[in-house]
C-alpha cells in the first residue's frame, strides 16, 4: 500500500451503480485524504445522493470498490460501515420522531461507547453516554429543546439534530447530504458554523447545492455530472475550470442567485 493510499480516509475506485438497465453512477474514482473537507456538487439527478447511499452501504454497488481508511467496505451493511467510523446524514430529515432530542443523541452514542445490545445496564446510569449526548446537544445549540420530542422541533432544529445524530458517535468520516437545504440565509449561516465546528479534525464529505456554503467550507470540490466525476480540485481550480463553467457552474450560479432572491 502506498503512503498516499494509507492517508486517504475514503477511496472509491471505478464505482458503478445500475438501477435496472439505467447506469446512475458510471465509474467514479475519488480519493479523499484524511482531514479534508470535500464537497460534491452537480446538477439534480447527477447521482450525488446515490453516491452517498453506495458509500454508506444503503445500496450495494454494482461494481467497483470502496475503501474506508484503506479497508475494503464495499459489501458491508450500513451498521458495519458505521462501526468502522463512517457516519452520514440524510437529505430528508431522518430522526427518531417520538424520542426526546436528548434520547436521539444518546441512542446515537451508545454503540460507539461499547454498550451494544446491553439489557443489563441502566441507561441513566451510563455517565459517559449522558455526558457525550449533552456535549453534542450543546454543540448543535438545542440545549433548550433537550426534553422535547424530536418530531415537534422546527425544520431548522430537526436539521441541526440530524447533524448531531450523525456526529454523536464520534465517526472520523462524516457524510452530510445537503445540510442546508430548505433553510433561510440566517439558518444557513448558522449551519455552516455548526458544520465547521463539529467536523474539526475529521474528514467531511458533503453534498451541497448552495455554492456559498460549498466555496466557504470545502478544501476541495468534485463536480459530478451524469454519474461521472467531471473535475476535482480546489475551489479556485473548480471556479477556473472551463469545462465546469460550461457544463454546470454558470447555470447553477444563476439558479441559486434566483432562489436566494426569492428567499429574501
Amino acid at each position, binding site marked *: 500500500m502506498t503512503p498516499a493510499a494509507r492517508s486517504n480516509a475514503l477511496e472509491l475506485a471505478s464505482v458503478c451503480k445500475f438501477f435496472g438497465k439505467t447506469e446512475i453512477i458510471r465509474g467514479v474514482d475519488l480519493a479523499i485524504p484524511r482531514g479534508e473537507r470535500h464537497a460534491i456538487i452537480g446538477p439534480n439527478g447527477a447521482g450525488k445522493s446515490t453516491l452517498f447511499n453506495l458509500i454508506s452501504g444503503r445500496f450495494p454497488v454494482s461494481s467497483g470498490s470502496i475503501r474506508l481508511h484503506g479497508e475494503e467496505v464495499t459489501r458491508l451493511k450500513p*451498521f458495519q460501515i458505521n462501526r468502522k467510523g463512517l457516519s452520514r446524514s440524510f437529505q430528508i430529515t431522518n*430522526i427518531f420522531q417520538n424520542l426526546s432530542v436528548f434520547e436521539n443523541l444518546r441512542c446515537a452514542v451508545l454503540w*460507539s461507547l461499547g454498550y451494544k445490545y446491553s439489557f443489563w445496564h441502566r*441507561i441513566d446510569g451510563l455517565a459517559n453516554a449522558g455526558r457525550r449526548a449533552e456535549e453534542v446537544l450543546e454543540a448543535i445549540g438545542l440545549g433548550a429543546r433537550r426534553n422535547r420530542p424530536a418530531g415537534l422541533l422546527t425544520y431548522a432544529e430537526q436539521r441541526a439534530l440530524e447533524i448531531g445524530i450523525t456526529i454523536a*458517535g464520534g465517526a472520523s468520516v462524516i457524510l452530510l447530504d445537503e445540510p442546508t437545504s430548505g433553510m433561510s440565509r440566517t439558518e444557513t449561516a448558522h449551519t455552516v458554523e455548526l458544520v465547521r465546528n463539529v467536523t474539526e479534525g475529521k474528514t467531511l464529505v458533503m453534498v451541497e447545492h448552495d455554492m456559498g456554503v460549498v466555496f466557504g467550507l470545502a478544501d476541495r470540490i468534485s463536480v459530478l455530472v451524469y454519474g461521472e466525476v467531471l473535475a476535482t480540485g480546489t475551489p479556485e481550480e473548480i471556479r477556473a475550470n472551463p469545462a465546469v463553467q460550461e457544463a454546470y457552474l454558470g447555470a447553477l450560479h444563476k439558479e441559486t442567485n434566483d432562489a436566494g432572491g426569492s428567499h429574501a
Partner: protein
Amino acid sequence: MNLRYRPLNLARWIVWGATAVVMVVLPLIFTQGFAITLISQMGVAIIFALSYNMLLGQSGMLSFGHAVYSGLGAYIAVHALNMASKGQIWMPVSLLPLVGGLAGAFFGVLFGYVTTKRAGTTFAMITLGIGELVFSCSLMFPDFFGGEGGITTNRVFGQPFLGITFGPAIQVYYLIAAWCLASMALMYAWSYTPLGRIANAVRDNPERAEFVGYDTQKVRWLTLIISAFFAGVAGALGCINFEIVTAENVSAVRSGGVLFAAFIGGVGFFFGPIIGACLFVYFVVALSDHTKAWLLYLGLFFMLIVMFAPGGVASLIMMQLPVIARKRFRELVPHYARTGAAGLLVLAALVLTVEMTYKVSVDSANGTAMTLFGVEFDAAGVLPWAVTIGLWILGGILFDTARRRLSRAWGEIQADLAEGRA
C-alpha cells in the same frame, strides 16, 4: 442533574409501593372465590400483555402469534410439573414460571430468528404463519399437546413448604402476584436499558438506527426473545392456576386476545397494557358469566377505543394530568358525570336490544320470559321494546348534548393551558 431526578424517583417508589400494597390487600378485601379467580387471571394477563407490548408499543412489532410463546411455555411447564410430581425431577412449584419463561425464550430464539428478519407487515404475516403452524402441530403431536383434551396436571404434590401447598386458590394468587410484580419491575427496567431505548429508536426509524451502528434485525430478535421469556412466565402461571393446558393456549384466539388487551389499555404507555389486561379479563371472565353475548360487547368496546381513543384507556388518563396539574379538573367533573350518566342510558338500551334479540331469536325455545337489571319481563312483549326504543332516543339526545358541552369545556381549558404555556 441529580436534583432533577430525585423527586421523580420518589414518585416512582410511591407508585411501585402502592402497586405492591394493592396486590397484597386485594384478596383480603374481595374474599369470595370468584374474586380470587378473577384477580389471579388478571395477574397472569398483566404479564402477558406487558410482554406483548415490549413488541408492539416499545419496538413497533405487530405480532399476531404471541400466544405461541406463552402457550409453548405453558406446555413445557405442564410436562415439567407432571415430571416433578412423579419425582422424576426436583422442582418446586414456585419456580415453575422460570421453566415456562426459559421455554418461551427458547422458542423465541428459534421462531424469532425467522420472524424478526423483517419488520412491519411482513413480520405480522410471518407471526400469523408461525402461530398457525404451532396450532396445527398441536393436533399432529397428541403426546406432547394432549390432543383435544389437553394435558392435565396437579399442582399439589410432595411435602408442604412452610405450610404452603399451593392447594388453596389464595396461595396460587400470591404466587402469581409475586411473579407479576417481579415481571412488571423487570420489564419496566428493560425499557430503561440501552437495548430498550434502541428498540424505541428502531420502532421510530429502523433505517436511521442502522446508520448509528445498530443491526435492527438483532435488536428485534433480542427484544422478541426477552418478550417471549415473560410470555412463557405468564403461560406457566396460567398452567399452575388452571392445572390444564390445551391447544387453545397456542391459538390465534389467544394471540388476538393479548392484542386486544394491549390496545384497549394503550400501547403508548408502560402501564397501558396493565389496565387493558384487567379490563380484558373482566370482560372474558365476569361478563361471560352473565351473558352469552360478551364477545359482542368486547368487540364493540374495542371498536369504540380504536375509533375514539386510539391511545387506549391510558391515553385518556394521561390527557387529564395537565388539567389536574393546573387545578382545572373540577370544572370538568359535572360534564364527565352528565356524559357518563347519559352514556349509561345508551348502554342500557344497547344491552336490552342485544339481550332481547338473543332471547327471541336464538333462545326462544326456552320461552321468552327473561330477567335483566333485576326486572322480569317478556322479551316478546311490546312494552319492553317500547322502553328500549325510548331509552335509545332519550339516551342518545342526552348523550349528544352532554358530549358537546364536555367537548366545549375541554376545548376552553386546553386553549387556556396552551396560552399559559406560551
